[in-house]
């Protein structure tokens, strides 16, 4: 029950009660965005028990991925180097 999933905000449907329609992997539902400052269509949010708890920061997501990929590249390079060696 402590799980949370990312979804994309489609539109604010009820300004007073802070409800937004979100798309989560093709499923559309209303969630409460009252725990967040300003939310706009197109924002990605993390959803838990019907509430958006946090906005997903695209830049930070890219940084983390970039870091992972660079580690991947170092590994690939190492693998290539290894393949190239012919220790007798």
């Amino acid at each position, binding site marked *: *029950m*402590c799980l949370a999933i990312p979804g994309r905000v489609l539109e604010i449907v009820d300004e007073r009660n802070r409800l937004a329609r979100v798309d989560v992997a093709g499923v559309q539902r209303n969630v409460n965005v009252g725990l*967040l400052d300003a939310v706009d269509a197109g924002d*990605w949010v993390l959803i*838990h*028990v019907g509430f958006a708890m946090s906005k997903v920061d695209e830049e930070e997501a890219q940084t*983390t991925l970039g870091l992972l990929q660079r580690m*991947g590249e170092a590994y690939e390079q190492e693998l290539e180097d290894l393949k190239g060696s012919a220790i007798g």
Partner: protein
Amino acid sequence: MKYVDEYRDAELGRALAAEIVATVEPGRHYKVMEVCGGHTHTIYKYGVDDLLPANVELVHGPGCPVCVIPMGRVDDGVAVAHEEGVIFTCFGDMMRVPGGDGTLLEAKAEGADIRMVYSPLDALRIARENPDREVVFFAVGFETTAPSTALTLMRAKAEGVRNFSVFCNHVTIVPPLRALLESPDLRLDGFIGPGHVSTVVGARPFEFIPADYGKPVVISGFEPLDLLQSVYMVLRQLADGRCEVENQYKRVVPYDGNPQALAVLAEVFELRPHFEWRGLGFISHSGLKLSEAYRDFDSELRFAVPGVRVADPKACQCGEVLKGVIKPWECKVFGTACTPERPIGTCMVSSEGACAAYYNYGRFARERVVV
């Protein structure tokens, strides 16, 4: 799915695993605790532990909100559910949690009106739709979930919904961690911090772990690559002789948390002097109850709640599992008398419980594939 699939890439996983192998000292045994049950679940679902070298051991922590609910509180919930005119609502996970007197599922079979909800807002809707009934929401969860209950209560108050109340079992993450760190039977090298709790409280509350206990903490996301990277970051800190709070899950965790969520928590809840945790006993200032301003919505004041303390069954070793002292399969009833269908202890109930994760993903014994 965006923000999910890219963190499940197997090739990158192997690359990270290779980095981890290169970081550890061969002769040293590392124990890293993942605090959160959601992490435990990911680790076994994706076999993250199979990618780790044999001398890096993941120890499962107390961060499964369903697992830590003591028997007596389940009995209290069952008692309220049986009251005349009550509709009792709870998350699906709570239905099979054993109390001293059976489960909510059994109470439902006996005729109590118990309904599973996805969100506390669903419980409030049921209250609106049934003005002549008393609707109770069984609130469980750490700081991740508590703001949702708080906002629901604020809305109930604003709308003047009188037939809605909350049986509050929300808990806070720092006190049990401190209790664990004080316990002599556990030697840990570092922590994988709870990502979703941290979206609310931020990373700052975990600074006491490096400051007072000299252990690294890395707040982690929930995809397999997030976890591998976080394990790597903990090991990197150890290798560098550093010890600090790092945030691997920056894409959703601000260092200072979510100020709105913290504000609603402060408005709706206050700390209990102490709260009982399954297997861990009473921990001071570790549970939340409704504040003075919300006392009219407190089920414990509205109904006669027995409040009897019930000792855990003898066979149950959930306490040791929650503290990471034993592995699930070391419990004598694991997989025999205690299964997800007929759980004896709570760790077998929720998919985030360590015993359920081991059982569901076939970890019956010690052997693991070492790469």
